[in-house]
């Protein structure tokens, strides 16, 4: 059978380097995150195509079988990094034996959210990409109260690096850009930023606010990494 070992320089077994500390250190790198995001976005497009079917014939059995109380229902259709971070780490722990320092920003257990009813904000919005590229993250809006909050729009400030370089606010997009928040509802919003190749690598910081809700805000950080470390 095949072997993925490229010469086995210092390992007796072809899979031994899975436990290699160097490999562990590289776990959850920007490149891995890019691979994950690109794959997720592509897959969702094909899921939608397959559900529609060439002539629509397979839509009935696929949709009919979806259990309404599916515990992971929020994950379906999600293309952001956040919802899968927990399972990502579980897998990394199991197969990579990660004992190395973790990237706390990428694995913060707190789900980034704005609670409109209680005026509380949780977590921080962290996006990471290599240049040129696009980074996405997700923020959840909650309205646990009995009152319809109407339509909410998110805004983000310019993002500033320590040396004064700015990523302008207009490069940040929200999907959906206007979010209806009826009583007792939660909505996930994808935040996306396009980074052109003239943006220098570095950490850019800004603030996310919600129009009409002056008391809640979230810190935003976009980490731009060079394509080659």
């Amino acid at each position, binding site marked *: 059978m095949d072997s993925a070992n490229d010469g086995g320089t210092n390992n007796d077994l072809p899979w031994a380097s899975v436990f290699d500390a160097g490999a562990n250190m590289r776990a959850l790198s920007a490149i*891995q995150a890019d691979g994950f995001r690109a794959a997720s976005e592509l897959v969702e497009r094909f899921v939608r195509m397959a559900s529609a079917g060439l002539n629509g014939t*397979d839509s009935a059995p696929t949709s009919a079988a979806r259990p309404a109380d599916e515990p992971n229902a929020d994950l379906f259709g999600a293309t952001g990094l956040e919802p899968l971070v927990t399972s990502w780490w579980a897998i990394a722990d199991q197969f990579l034996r990660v004992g190395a320092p973790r990237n706390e920003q990428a694995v913060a257990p707190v789900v980034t959210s704005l609670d409109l009813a209680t005026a509380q904000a949780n977590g921080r919005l962290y996006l990471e990409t290599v240049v040129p590229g696009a980074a996405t993250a997700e923020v959840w809006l909650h309205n646990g109260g009995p009152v319809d909050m109407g339509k909410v729009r998110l805004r983000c400030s310019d993002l500033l690096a320590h040396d004064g370089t700015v990523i302008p606010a207009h490069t940040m997009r929200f999907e959906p850009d206007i979010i209806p928040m009826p009583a007792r509802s939660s909505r996930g919003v994808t935040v996306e930023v396009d980074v052109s190749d003239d943006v220098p690598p570095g950490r850019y910081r800004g603030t996310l606010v919600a129009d009409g809700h002056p008391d809640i805000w979230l810190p935003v950080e976009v980490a731009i990494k060079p394509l080659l470390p």
Partner: protein
Amino acid sequence: MTSTADHADLIADVEGHLRNVAKVVRRGMLDALPDGEPAQWLYGPMREYPSRPGKALRPALCLSASRAFGAEPDALLGVAVAIELLHNAFLVHDDVADGSEMRRGRPTLAATHGMAAALNAGDGLAIVSGQVLRRATRGLDPELADLVWHEFDTMALRTLEGQATEVGWQLDNVEDLKPQDYLELIMLKTCWYTTIHPLRVGALVGSGGKADLAPLVRFGFHFGAAFQIRDDLLNLVGDERTYGKEILGDLYEGKRTLTLMHLLSAAEGNDRALLSDYLRRGRAERSDGMVRAVRRLMDDYGSIAFTREYAEGILLVAEEYFEQAFVDARPGPDLDFLRALVPYVWARWR
């Protein structure tokens, strides 16, 4: 905590299961192939690839998914044989299109019988695959049978779309490709027919049309893409004896792999010029020295390391998607086999 011994067991279990499936499916394929004249230039060559040892991943996925969703043990054997026959048909034509010299450790059909006989043999395998599928779906509820044929039509078109896209990139000498373009390519030309389709058909028939097929696209792609990228890497870093195909064959062909795409985006100056010149040439005009030079650049620019990391990001969530896709499946050896596939690719990773 997973020990090295557990990983050795896991690899042995998965490969043992695949070998058993391969044996049964090979017999099914050879039984289905006609045996008359012209033997030397049609039915003989048609038996060539199905006789050679293959991984049988596709039929194994189909059979296990079907049983995990409730099918009787051999209920989908015909469907699995049809999938593998069509795969063999694709391989024959693929080798012609690529000008490949080796397949499964032996010369390609085009190399031994010429292009015309190879094309006929490929067509013949595709037609027999259809015959086998028709027999296999005869006993199903007509609506379910129609859905199965629809899955096959979709799969065949996806694969052709992918093949055509790749041919176009090479003929048009397209160089501004990104990793996302590569993922789209392998979704079409590899993952749909290698992992997604067998899983979907197995679940569809096994559940009598009740299973949710969408999560299988997610699991199938994440698993299949990692499997394919690993295969591409083996072509760059493996050895011919264990790989079964010619090493660096993808480079000779100028195949747009993820590694090559990274190199295209990273190479500068003279390196970039060398690469552009290399890609503009036809296969016959690429010397061993040129191939080795491009291969060295892949090390120099970290393209091999990039490929591994990018694919790891895709594989890391495959297990989560597995649990979503098989939440309604029944426990047993088939579910165990399917669940072991992601760890299997991990264990074979670096």
